[in-house]
């Protein structure tokens, strides 16, 4: 399946774009996706944290991703 991943803040700079299309196996979990991104973009491992939001909610690592999910990379937040 093909996932669409939104990136914000420094994650957008690391990807070099705001949106990434990624072809992954059907049984991909949030953890699998993170591993894949860390492998492809080692700069992510230098961040304090990297969370993944699925459909605008912080997601647990064992959640299975669906093709229609809105997935977002959430580097350390710094609002306020």
């Amino acid at each position: 399946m093909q996932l669409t991943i939104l990136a914000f803040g420094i994650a957008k700079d690391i990807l070099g774009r705001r949106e990434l299309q990624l072809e992954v196996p059907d049984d991909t979990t949030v953890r699998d996706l993170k591993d894949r991104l860390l492998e492809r973009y080692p700069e992510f491992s230098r961040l304090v944290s990297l969370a993944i939001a699925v459909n605008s909610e912080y997601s647990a690592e064992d959640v299975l991703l669906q093709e229609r999910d809105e997935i977002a990379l959430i580097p350390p937040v710094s609002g306020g």
Partner: protein
Amino acid sequence: MKIDIQLKHGSLSPQQCIDWVSSPRVGGIDVFVGTVREQTQGRPVLYLDFEAYEPMAVAEMRKIAETACERWPIERIAIHHRVGKLEIGDLAVVIAVSTPHRKAAFDACQYAIDTLKKTVPIWKKEVFTDGEVWVAAHP
């Protein structure tokens, strides 16, 4: 409706938040205003750029307000955050909480800003004369 959440691309108004949380039933209103500081660790800041994952930022701010309403006897709570380019002295966030007695207003307001800084997907980029940094990204 006792919760007002706004993500704004223009300037924030503390008075608007105070007016919104005001009510004859309250005895205290606590307001927190976060502003843009002119320097970070001695390095002069030119301006800040705030970016948000907007639907999730609004949802997370709403969760904070809802949790605060469960924990304290809140009459009304307003959380407004600004995004985009902010100059020194501009207001980045305004939180106003009204309660029957002051202590709950102080406590709820502190909970709201402390939690916002940890959970709401908003990112601040500091722009200096000689570079730029996403705040808190690296250890």
